[in-house]
């Protein structure tokens, strides 16, 4: 489809009770683009990613992922909720990697990676297992397929989680602070996998505190604060030459 791998948003708004966490967000992510979302905690970057794969429902605004209105269908006067099956199908094409990995502890690494294809798409187990082993190898975890999450380090768990997302053949990958829960010496191995993925042309939106990674890999860096996109542009502009005072202050505090 023509819209595959794109994220389009206009005037996205999301609030929890009285607290507005996303305020008129616009996005134009093209296929293969790498967007790093930075900002202090509570700035809304996690919520933005969670909205893009439907874990949170937006209050207002246009949100199209892979060229389709996410979770809703536009009519003349409103957005009508889609059938649950349609929503599930849409979400299966959007990969999500969580800060806390969220691997299924009752399954081995291989079973985790197989879970989407087998339990959602109904693929035969043998085929899914072969594919899972290939994916695990591609994230540098050859031979770890039989291990349970508790037997793996944080970095390994996160790489299994990435493989699990990739098993669904998503067109867009969302990373919600994928390295924030890791020991410092484990951050590199996860970033390497993500970099590899970026080079293969995956559309990626990454909420992160890894400024070095953002500078190196991102096409666009978005700085968010208080639910607003304060500044966005090429990494060298936003990270090295920020125009907004809030961006400057934030970068001073983290670097």
């Amino acid at each position: 489809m023509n819209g595959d791998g794109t994220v389009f948003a206009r005037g996205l708004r999301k609030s929890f009770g009285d607290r507005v966490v996303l305020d008129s967000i616009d996005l134009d992510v093209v296929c293969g683009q790498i967007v790093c979302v930075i900002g202090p905690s509570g700035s809304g970057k996690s919520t933005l990613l969670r909205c893009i794969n439907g874990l949170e429902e937006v209050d207002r605004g246009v949100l199209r992922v892979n060229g389709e209105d996410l979770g809703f269908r536009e009519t003349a006067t409103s957005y009508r909720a889609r059938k649950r099956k349609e929503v599930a199908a849409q979400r299966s094409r959007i990969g999500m990697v969580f800060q806390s990995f969220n691997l299924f502890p009752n399954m081995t690494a291989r079973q985790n990676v197989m879970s989407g294809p087998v339990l959602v798409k109904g693929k035969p187990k043998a085929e899914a297992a072969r594919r899972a082993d290939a994916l695990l190898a591609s994230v540098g975890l050859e031979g770890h397929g039989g291990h349970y999450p508790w037997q793996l380090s944080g970095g390994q768990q996160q790489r299994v989680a990435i493989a699990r997302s990739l098993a669904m053949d998503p067109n867009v990958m969302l990373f919600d602070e994928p390295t924030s829960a890791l020991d410092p010496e484990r951050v590199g191995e996860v970033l390497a996998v993500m970099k590899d993925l970026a080079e293969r042309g995956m559309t990626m939106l990454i909420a992160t505190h890894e400024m070095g990674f953002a500078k190196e890999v991102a096409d666009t860096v978005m700085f968010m604060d208080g639910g607003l996109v304060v500044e966005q542009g090429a990494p060298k502009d936003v990270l090295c030459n920020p125009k907004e005072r809030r961006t400057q202050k934030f970068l001073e505090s983290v670097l």
Partner: protein
Amino acid sequence: MTSTTEPTRTDRHKPDGHEDAATKPRVHRRGTLEYVAWAVCVLVTIGVTRTLVTNENYQWDVVAQYLTAPSIIRGLVLTVVLTFAAMFFGSVLGVVIAVLRVSPLRPVRILAGAYLTFFRGTPVLVQLIFWFNIAALYPELAIGIPFTDISQDIDVNRLISATTAAVLGLSLNQAAYQAEIVRGGFASVDKGQIEAADALGMSRLTKLRRITIPQAMPTIVPATGNQFIGMFKETSLVSVLGVAELLQSVQLVYARTYQTIPLLLVACVWYLVMTVLLSYPQSLIEKRFSRTRARVGNDPVPSQIGLIGDAK
């Protein structure tokens, strides 16, 4: 305070004490309270044993005579059957109600909540008598297909025998408690697990079967084992309906022979033996699931660090 460190101090004064101090064993203090507790324990044991042996009103010969009497054994078997039946139907229905209780549809949640309120809010004994007398409320039950002439009237009095009422009452009541156990199990599953399943596009049923229920099992199973033991004793309540389970069986005997105490002892012995027998698998299950539970977390617990180390 001073007495705690005393042994070390006296040792230090010995001529060679300084060199060997590093190898000396650490001796822990036994408090006075422990000696007192032991004394009380021994006294109570002696007292209880003495009265059990010397008080002739216990009539141990009668206990021995009836312990394996055919009518008593029949009662025991019925008690076991009732326990298993009520636990089976109760657990199945309990899971269903727990699922309804967390339904996204509000009316479904309300109905499930009403069920829980009623069955947990009224005594089991009252419920049992109620089911036994249900025929007074609905003398005839018509089973048929709505909007057609096909229908069959059933005499409720015949349908609900004492045993049916017992199974029905115990099961429906057990279902309410089981539902709460299952719901607690569901609540113990990390929210991130559901989000991960959602992100993969899993359907609600798949999430329940593959993610929520397997991860809730470590919480559900041990609690259910407890319920099992509880149910075994709870079946004694159905004696009021005239169901010839263990308690009713001994009552039938002592109503005739007036040997109330020894026959109640017969019942006690069997209840005790069975609960102890049931406790053993229960403790095994609990141990097994507490181990898996520790594995479930993202971080290894201290006892597993060695295990992981071995694997490397």
